[in-house]
């Protein structure tokens, strides 16, 4: 396990969550293929992998684009469990989608059982300023309350699209490094635990 990361680029698993129609797939496709798809087709679940340079280091990103609709909630948990970082997306033009982020946050915390899981609150469709229903202030406050960052994006204009993915990956990477440090020590400890105790005795 410890040898693998050197031979293969690190893999970060990102999950897109949010209500239906807020632009999860649009953001993903914009990030993946630089394309903007305007026609709406509800996603059941889609997964993508991309190699990118993150601060000079080659890493792989796995993006899982989940269903916003409740119909697919059963399979969603299976994905949540394996996610390392979450982009929680709402549409700034739709108040309900903003309210729903609360539920998504709770679900993720319930499944991951970790308050500090890498997480970004994303207000999409910021190109539609004239139709804005959720103020920047309001969203930032919620993000602050959760201890996460708030970013506004536009899948259409590509504004901040790369930023949210890269920021999240940096969080995941930092998190992993922290874990590796402690777990390496722990791992050794675990393997030698019996022995150690013996010698102590």
């Amino acid at each position: 396990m410890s040898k693998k990361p050197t031979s293969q680029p690190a893999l970060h698993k990102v999950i897109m969550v949010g209500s239906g129609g807020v632009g999860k797939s649009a953001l993903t496709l914009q990030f993946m293929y630089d394309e903007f798809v305007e026609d709406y087709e509800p996603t059941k679940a889609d997964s993508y992998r991309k190699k990118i340079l993150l601060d000079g280091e080659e890493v792989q990103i796995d993006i899982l684009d989940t269903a916003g609709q409740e119909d697919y909630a059963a399979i969603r948990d299976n994905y949540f469990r394996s996610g390392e970082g979450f982009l929680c997306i709402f549409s700034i033009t739709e108040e309900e989608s903003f309210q729903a982020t609360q539920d998504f946050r709770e679900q993720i915390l319930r499944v991951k059982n970790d308050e500090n899981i890498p997480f970004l609150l994303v207000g999409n469709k910021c190109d539609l300023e004239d139709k804005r229903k959720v103020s920047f202030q309001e969203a930032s406050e919620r993000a602050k309350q959760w201890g996460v960052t708030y970013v506004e994006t536009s899948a259409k204009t590509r504004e901040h699209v790369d930023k949210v993915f890269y920021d999240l990956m940096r969080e995941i990477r930092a998190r992993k490094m922290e874990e590796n440090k402690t777990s390496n020590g722990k791992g050794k400890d675990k393997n030698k635990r019996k022995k150690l105790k013996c010698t102590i005795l």
Partner: protein
Amino acid sequence: MEYEQSNVIKDFPGLYASESQKINNRESDYSEDEKLTRKDLLTGKKKDKKDKKDKEKGYAALEGESSADEGYEIRSPTKSKKSKSFKFASKSKEKREKSRDKEKDFADKKKEKDKRIDKKSEKEKGKNDKKERPGDIAEELPIFGVPLELAVERSRCHDGVDLPLPYRACIDYLQMYGLGFEYIYKISSPKSKVLHLKKMYNHREFVDLAEHDVPTITGLLKMFLRDLPESIFTSELIVRFEEAGAILNVAMREKHLKILVGNLPPLNYMAVSWLIVHLYTVTLNEKSTKMNAQSIAATLSSTLQISQRLLTALLCHCPALFVDVKLIQYIPPLISTAQLPDEKDLMEIELKKQESLLSQIHSEMNAGFVSKQREELLWEVQRLITQLKRKIRSKNRVVEEKGIEEKVSHENTGNSSENLETERITATKKKDSQEVLNTVPLSLNNSEDNLDLNKKEINNASIASENVEVKNIEWDFPKPTEVDQEKTANVKITQEIESKSVNTLQTEDPNLPLLANDKEIMYLNLKNQTLLELKNKLIEKMEIEKKEIARLKLVLKEVQYKNQTEPVIIDSNSDNLDKIMELLQNENQILHIKKINLVRKIMEEHEICIDLSAKLMMLTASC
């Protein structure tokens, strides 16, 4: 190591306290981890309880070697409480990490297992895994030893053939490598080998049967059959099968067996048919396998829990009993995006397989069997599905774009046509979709060609005998509505008629002065008259339709212009209406064929009518 420890404890009783603490510490560590992993799992309460019990047993067993007896005696509740609270208060974060470590360890072990570097150590590790994991899929949802339908559900072949994977894999293997193997099914292999394979299947591990020999695989197949709680012939029908097998009259026996086979539940029919067809091919290769129906029956009747007589009978009647059964080798879902097929049909087949696999993974995970490996697989399969969908969609888009281009080019060079069908299609196209467009250029083509033909023929008509030409026009009329093949067929017909009528004309001309032919001439003249009338009517209709076509074309151009200004809307329509388009196209084709047939009939009837009316007129004239 552990033994030494216990010895130490024996030798130095004063150390009991710290030792017990150690044990308790270890225990508490595990239980903490357990809690965490269990939370992660979100499994039902019942399962948790079960898991806990299993695990407690597991830990007891692990520790049993060293200090089970002493340990339990020594442990005092107060001390364990102390140690627990101490641990818990100080480092809850570490524990979380520990649980993660453990997951990693587990993943590592799994990987090693897959590689099968060292079978012995692997087995040991396997045991450890089982004890550490919350719930063991091989124990809770095994594939062997459960009713057939459960086995199928838990271990699907993802190509739609409803057989349990190990069963299918065995038959596939034996069809490939077993038919040249002497005394197949008779020679057995060490049970441990077979059990190992069974265990791998139960653990949902990847199994490559090609690494094993024929006796092991026959052994595995036999074990699967023997493990089934119910005979594959079903306990309801088995007695009747036996009765049928005992019938002396060969024809009667076959008839009865056929009825009974037909009464088997679908899954059982599948399993029985594949097995018997496979065994039958073994007997067909008697030269190399040294096994005939009798010897196969003798070796396998006990496994199948049926009499030798019945199995022999089934094998002998196999060609009649399972006429349509074909053993198709299973090609499992692909495992990497690199090998995705390029043809649309293959992509769609692959997509179905992957979706079947995905739903199986989900159901296993929903049942609480979550491992790093399974999660990896879940993402991988999901990625494959996404890729396939994208590929299929882009293919569809290319087809559509081509269709539009063709249409445009045809529109630009477009001639007027008298084709009602074209108009109809264009009308539906405007309403519905672009897929349908693809048929438009075709029919436009036809109608243009036909128009030319018609024109030529009309020109000819003035030169040649009207009689012949009117006939030709009449035959030509349905032509424009038909597709390419029909068109050529019709051209042939027209040509035939032409030559025939030319012949008749040639023969008629010298006969003109003959009195005997007066009646015929009168008849022909009358017929000619009616046909000429018809011709005029048709020409009128053509004119009207030409105008209509010109009008519709204008409308079409407007619509096109709109489409060009709003290209995105085209895309959305076409994307969403893909399925509808396909359906419409199919329907359109069927209707097309129906229409062609009807038009033909009408024309035939029409001809008869003209014939009859001419005769009638002749009769009234002569009267």
